[in-house]
């Protein structure tokens, strides 16, 4: 099947694993400088004295890297209408310079919109894993997806 992945094409219970992002210390500091300038995301010395025990990425940076991997995986395929948000996001393990991250995503349910007949919503259990197969972050994300237009076969 070519073309966009519409609401009808999303399969409940199916798991996809994808992505490969190695995060550098420079990227960690660059993101944190703009969006989360707390000392343990900026400076190795300060981070050593903190709960993190060493330089660690902002949790929001981990989330942003996850989003990039999601978009790259579904580029040109998804008839996405964005997301209303997410639930139960957990930052479970620090993400360190040199960590290699990937994403594992399972559709856990989907439902048609009652108010907007051209779309539906799908919920995904999404996990970000590192090279040691540890889950560093997880969340339940909701995506809004167009239904296949009547004109297409």
């Amino acid at each position: 099947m070519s073309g966009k992945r519409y609401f009808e094409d999303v399969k409940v219970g199916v798991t996809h694993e994808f992505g490969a992002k190695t995060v550098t210390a420079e990227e960690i500091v660059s993101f944190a400088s703009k969006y989360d300038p707390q000392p343990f995301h900026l400076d190795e010395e300060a981070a050593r004295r903190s709960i993190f025990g060493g330089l660690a990425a902002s949790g929001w940076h981990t989330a942003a890297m996850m989003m990039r991997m999601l978009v790259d995986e579904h580029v040109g395929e998804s008839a996405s209408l964005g997301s209303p948000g997410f639930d139960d996001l957990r930052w479970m393990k620090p993400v360190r310079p040199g960590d290699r991250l990937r994403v594992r995503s399972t559709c856990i349910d989907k439902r048609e919109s009652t108010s907007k007949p051209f779309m539906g919503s799908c919920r995904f259990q999404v996990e970000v894993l590192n090279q040691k197969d540890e889950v560093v972050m997880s969340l339940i994300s909701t995506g809004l997806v167009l239904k296949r237009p009547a004109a297409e076969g």
Partner: protein
Amino acid sequence: MAELCWEDFETGQTLEYGGHTVTKEEIVEFARDFDPQIFHLDEEAAKDHFFGGLIASGWQTAGFTMRMMVDGFLNRSSSQGSPGVAELRWLKPVRPGDRLRVRQTVLSKRASQTRPAIGLIESSFETLNQRDEVVMTMRSTGMFGRRHPGGSAEETEGRS
């Protein structure tokens, strides 16, 4: 010792801080690295899209909110990160020129079960634009160093 420790937060307390004016350049730069969907990247293409113009990635709105939290109080506190976000909703698009600020309400506080030097604070956050519309809401927990580690049970409020 930081100015604001776990003991200094009170259930029901509200804090307001910010603001940040969002630029088109910031929107495109973040989207290029983290959320390269067309409506976050290309002003012309975005005009024909569902959102009717260039909008910030929701993850960037979360990032702006975090920056305002850090500048607003976290970097004066004994913050030690966060175990996570119970719930986040993106309610309204954020467009170039929007000016954002944050309104926070402390919901509950509790001592850590595992780390005597840490306490947790759960808060709800609203990110507002210049029209006082709520563009994003979030409920999340922050970890803070305690001025008095392993203190008495009566310092614990809410669910333990």
